[in-house]
């Protein structure tokens, strides 16, 4: 990896850290001045899961049948077990079996 690229990586990581700390410290800073409205709270509450949806959907649209079926399997395992590792492993197992033996 060239040197300026790894410098960019470090800058990115530290800017991420700055953005994160800003949100952690900002709440206490603001709280004595402004009380967030219910509408704004709802906005904040729905944003993280919407971002996940926005990552997943375009990713899957470009994929084949193996990936779609494995995605459904990973989702089902997550719903049933509420366990991230189990869901990840079953998704990986499903996609490698489907790719190599079913939809070649």
């Amino acid at each position, binding site marked *: 990896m060239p040197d300026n*690229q*790894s410098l*960019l*990586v470090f800058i*990115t*990581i530290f*800017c*991420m*850290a700055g*953005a*994160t*700390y*800003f*949100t*952690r*410290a900002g*709440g*206490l800073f603001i*709280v*004595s001045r402004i*009380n*967030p*409205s*219910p*509408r704004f*709270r*709802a*906005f*904040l*509450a*729905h*944003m*993280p*899961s*919407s*971002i*996940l*949806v*926005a*990552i997943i*959907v*375009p*990713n899957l*649209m470009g994929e084949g049948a193996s*990936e779609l079926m*494995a*995605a459904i399997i*990973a*989702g089902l395992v997550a719903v049933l077990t509420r*366990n*991230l*590792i189990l*869901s*990840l492993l079953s*998704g*990986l*197992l499903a*996609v*490698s079996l489907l*790719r190599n033996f079913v939809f070649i």
Partner: protein
Amino acid sequence: MLKAEQFTISGDIILHKPDKLSVPNKMAFQNNHVTFSRRGIMDGFFKCVPLGLGVFAYGLVFGILAIQAGLSPVQAQLMSLVVFAGASQLMALELWGPHLPVLTIILTTFVVNLRHLLMGAAMRDWLVRISPGKSYFSLYFMTDESWALSVKEMVSGKKDAAFLLGSGLCIYFFWNFSTFLGSTMSFWIDRYLSDPSVLGLDFAFTAVFIALLTFFWKGKSQVPVWMMAAMVAWIAFILLPGKWYIIFGGLAGGITGACRNA
């Protein structure tokens, strides 16, 4: 006064009925001497260990995927040490590539972590009564898990604000230790396996995000929000270059949720 709120592990907000909670809460702070002791740190640390074990699994996944995404073990560890925010670290990996979309990564990190604003605000009864230095130091280590535990302590009338720092340090320890194990493991897999797609590792991100998404499920009211997020993301994916579709989809979902809930 701020309404008492509680976040679940996944960062969603549950609003409590204020009539039940605010009264004992107010009374508990009538006599409002809040301390910050070493015992409070230890207490928070050990009470948080069960939650730390849950975080351990996420950290392992982060460490493994960080190497697959092209970070070095040192960079992955640095990210866990200074950023220390699971969901946004995983999303950053999804965006990672030979041409780093720096601005998108930083914006996504910021937006994903906006919920911290509310969490920090909710800790006000403790944090305005200790020195600003201790408050802002403790907030560096605040996570969904340690916050949930600390707010429970605070609302039940405990007076040692160091609990927030102690529980945060516990999560910090588990997150970084598991990042180390995961990235080391992944480093050796990469070394000895010429084509990791045999294992389906390229699919790992999608699987992780789908699993995380199911943890956010709180009922049917989520459906229109997620539909809107999916639609806008899909359209932005076709029309716009780079990864802007993630931010547009997230904003669209947030706005839909705000319009329906208020």
